[in-house]
């Protein structure tokens, strides 16, 4: 199984990016083996609809779940339509997030965790 964790860097020790649509990277992690693959967020350069495009990229990459800080309504709707489960409120390192997921400590979201555009201009 592959899960997608939004990340500020390209390693397992990088910090989880608190935003979904405007995350720098998506790390596709296999929680069993901790092997991973790095995807640059291709939607970052777009002016609008970023969450939707990012969701499309994650769905196409075959992720079954997204672990992130916050996920807006358009991205959430798209991920849901693509059969991807969203876990928001995730922080710390990518590795910690993957371990928490594997241990079953995360709860899946039933709705978007933030308003549209919440990730704009909030680079941390």
């Amino acid at each position, binding site marked *: 199984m592959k899960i997608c964790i939004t990340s500020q860097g390209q390693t397992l020790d990088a910090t989880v990016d608190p935003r979904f649509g405007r995350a720098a990277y998506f790390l596709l992690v296999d929680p069993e083996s901790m092997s991973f693959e790095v995807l640059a967020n291709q939607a970052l350069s777009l*002016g*609008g*609809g970023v969450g939707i495009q990012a969701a499309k990229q994650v769905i196409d990459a075959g992720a079954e779940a997204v672990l992130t800080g916050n996920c807006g309504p*358009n991205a959430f709707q*798209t991920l849901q339509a693509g059969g991807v489960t969203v876990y928001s409120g995730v922080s710390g390192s990518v590795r910690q997030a993957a371990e928490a997921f594997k241990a079953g400590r995360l709860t899946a979201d039933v709705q978007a965790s933030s308003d549209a555009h919440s990730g704009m201009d909030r680079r941390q």
Partner: protein
Amino acid sequence: MKPFPSIAVASGKGGTGKTTIAVNLAWALSKSGRRVQYMDCDVEEPNGAIFLKPSFQSKEPVLVEVPQVNLDKCIGCGKCGQLCQYGAIVSLGKQVLTFEALCHSCGGCIQICPTEAITAKQLEVGVVEQGMAGAVDCVQGLLQIGSVRTPTVIRQTRKRSRADAIRILDAPPGTSCPVIAAARDVDFMLLATEPTPFGLHDLKLAVGMVRQLGLPFGVAINRSDIGDDRVVQYCREENIDILLQIPDDRKIAESYSRGEMMIEALPHYEPMFLQLYESIQSRGSGR
């Protein structure tokens, strides 16, 4: 200047008296026997009608086209989603999601679909109303709540422009897309401000905008005897004409608060607006 010029009343800062100036200018000109059209282009909060009290005779929806997908015809090629720069349509295999609020109505997805699975659906984003207030032809645009298509509604409002009347445009505040949509092609722009640090700050932004548009313009100072003289100083330094100064008269505020026309409640202010028009006429053809 043209016999029937279009004059936009704009401002950087909101609440500086754009509507007060626009409606009283329109009313004074009409009373003097001129043919006048008042166009409320402040479509997010049109309120000139509160003062002019027109009886609107027509009401026309402002429609834009957004995609609608027939999934029976869709082959899931994903070309629509790849084309759209706004994420307004996204193809997930046999499922296609559309986000109408993000759509810019370019029609690209409809064109690129190889199986004609996407067709245009009309979406209402606002209305344009028109009617008479005395002899003033009033047009007003109103944006639907929740819609972001402000310039679309403004352009649709402007389409009602009459070539045989002086057009007074009540522009939206600010310096971005809405005011540009309302006033980019007018014959003259009057910038309303107030003599405060806020008024001065936003006047400078508005002057930058109107200079970039290359339009003749002048300044109107509302409540001219409050605050300080820095707006006047700025205008002098920048060689900008101050064409109107409305004093801080409690009686004006009272008539405003009752939704009355200033020049009806206080007729001695009427010549001031006719004088303003003469000033605009004499300057408009210059610069």
